[in-house]
């Protein structure tokens, strides 16, 4: 089980990358910052960085628009 933003839970699957997590959550926002267990993940690593089971993931959306 993965916890997103201290609240939302999603099922973990072996080999799941940061991109998979974002897709699963439907997060297509353009100003996003991701940390996995407190470690900042660069956008260029989203497709390759694999998250472990029980990871705490924060997906920070920065306000824009209006």
């Amino acid at each position, binding site marked *: 089980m993965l916890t997103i933003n201290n609240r939302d839970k999603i099922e973990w699957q072996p080999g799941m990358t940061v991109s998979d997590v974002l897709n699963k959550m*439907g997060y297509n926002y353009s100003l996003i910052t991701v940390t996995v267990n407190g470690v*900042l993940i660069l956008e*260029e690593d989203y497709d*390759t960085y694999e998250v472990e089971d029980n990871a705490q993931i924060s997906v*920070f959306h920065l306000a*824009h*628009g209006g």
Partner: protein
Amino acid sequence: MAKKKTNKINILVDGKPITIVEDNFLLPDLLKNNIAIPTLCHHKDLTPNGSCRLCIVEIEERGRKRLVTSCNFPVRSEIKVETNSEVVKKYRQNLAEMYLGRWPNVEIIQKVARECGATDKDKYKSYLTEDSAHACILCGHCTRACNEFIQEDIIDFAGRGIKRHIAMPFENVDPHCVGCTSCAYVCPTGAIQVSDNRNHPVNAKLIQEHGMKVNAEMATLDPYQCRMREVGTANIVEVMNNYDLLPVKNFKYGTHEDTWRIDSNMMKKSYFTQGHPDQCWHGCSMACAKAVEDFELRTGPYKGHKVIVDGPEYETAAGSSNMGCFDMDFCVEYNFYCDTYGIDTISFATCMAFVMECFENGIIDKKDTDGLELNFGATTDTLEILHQMARGKGFGVEVGQGIKYLKNKWAEKHPEKADFVRDIGMEVKGLEFSEYVSKESLAQQAGYSLALKGPQHDEAWLIFMDMVNNQIPSFEDKAEALYYFPLFRTWFGLYGLCKIVWNDVVPADNAQKHPPQIAAKIPEHVENYWKFVEGMTGRKVDEKIMLDESAKVHNLQKIMGLMLGKNSFEDDIPPYRAVGPVTEEEYESRQERYDGQLKELGFDIDDKTTPEKMAILRKYRYEQYDKVQKAAYKRRGWNEKGIPKIERLKELGIDLPELVEIIEPLQ
């Protein structure tokens, strides 16, 4: 959105392994790895043009060696790179000597010559030699800055071969030059200099330095971030739809399968023809305004005319979905007529959405609307209402009075449905809500409803912080955000500055540098505003000065409202549609969410009907709202009823007798 490549490639540089993202140019990664490479035409924020050839390196690809300019060489395979081989050194030294012969006194040339071991000033001395220390070295920074930073092509190379030089068209001063000073800023030799500062700022350089940072961010980051130059604020139509935040049918829902018909891709593909900077702010590099040309109107006094329409922006498109009109032609037409008649698109759309829901629920019928069928999605009849509003005839005149008026009138007419009418009329303080669904964000409900000017679109910033990021979980956190952000907003508004350069482009390392609570403020961009004020006036600003300055005005606005008999506690409470589901269909459309929340809160709902569950949710959500409202008041130095305390006015130095007189009886 343009997506950056993420494939990694391992290369060997001078025998050492380096990992590089596919398609990245070689030079920046070499510099990042502390490998010294001489350059003249390279600039970190500009597209490389490969003209000086000093950054040359030797690469080996599939056993074959060749020389390439590293600044514009994209890495696509596992190459070996020699940055300092004999061939490379010789090549660079010779080149540097040629530069030195032509521009012997230019500092940056002297520096590069030293780096390349070029010492002989006279070897290439010729009639081309220029003695000036500020000679133009033809690096092309200026032409690229003009084009890439502010999307102009005022300044360019002219002439060929030895006659090549930098010029404006026909060697004249081009009146289209906006005087943004980008070209001067990037010029490494001082060949271009700013000679006047017409507004007489105290410190022009300070303003320039901060402005140029934004220019560079726009040129390098915007295509991957908000695409303001490409589509403007419309970029968030599809995003809001995806996060269930796009208002659909009077804020009933947050998403719709037909959103693609009015999203930014549709606008870009078939509508926008103009995206050039329109100088709404002289020299602005964001250029977020877009326009549709040759648009043939279907209705109204200009029917059949081809017109130019400024927009649509996010809120206008979201207004369409709110009226259930997923039709881009309609969106552009109502945009045009609202502009032409001087009507706000947001107020119009939100008000019409309310009228449509009332029509569908029998609160009004065709007798009231002079025969118009005002169901959701009624594009033609909606445009007719707009024309009636402008003509001052028909039902449109009623609609033009706004939701607050209609709500009271129709609630009186239908006492049995009065609660429903009040619940779905999306206004606070007489202003129609802007186009975001706030149901799942308590902070956003308060952001809208506590705003002194009403639920206007520039208060719509807390929604992601609260609802998606879960970063302001406690009432105190929300109250803090409800203190800082509206005051920041009020503050730069007072200086006449635009909001877009604050958060529609963000420094690449914003989130690396700051923890989330601070990152949300985008500290470097807030600083840009402070430096602008300091550069213009000479007065330094920091967070405390800013917030206090703004709080003065904010409290004055509040008290003026009280003087007019407005701004009471009740005026700060949103209609229930902004807080939770009003109708059964609305609840059931998001049943999993609402049931889940109720269970998590410990309510036993297993044998409850939808109306029963709705009642529990409603009670709970309004209680939560009440808490956040009071926490926000407290943080502002107001009492439980939302009245500024006299101490607070003293603290801010605005405890004038005529103000105290108003609030004293209310303490």
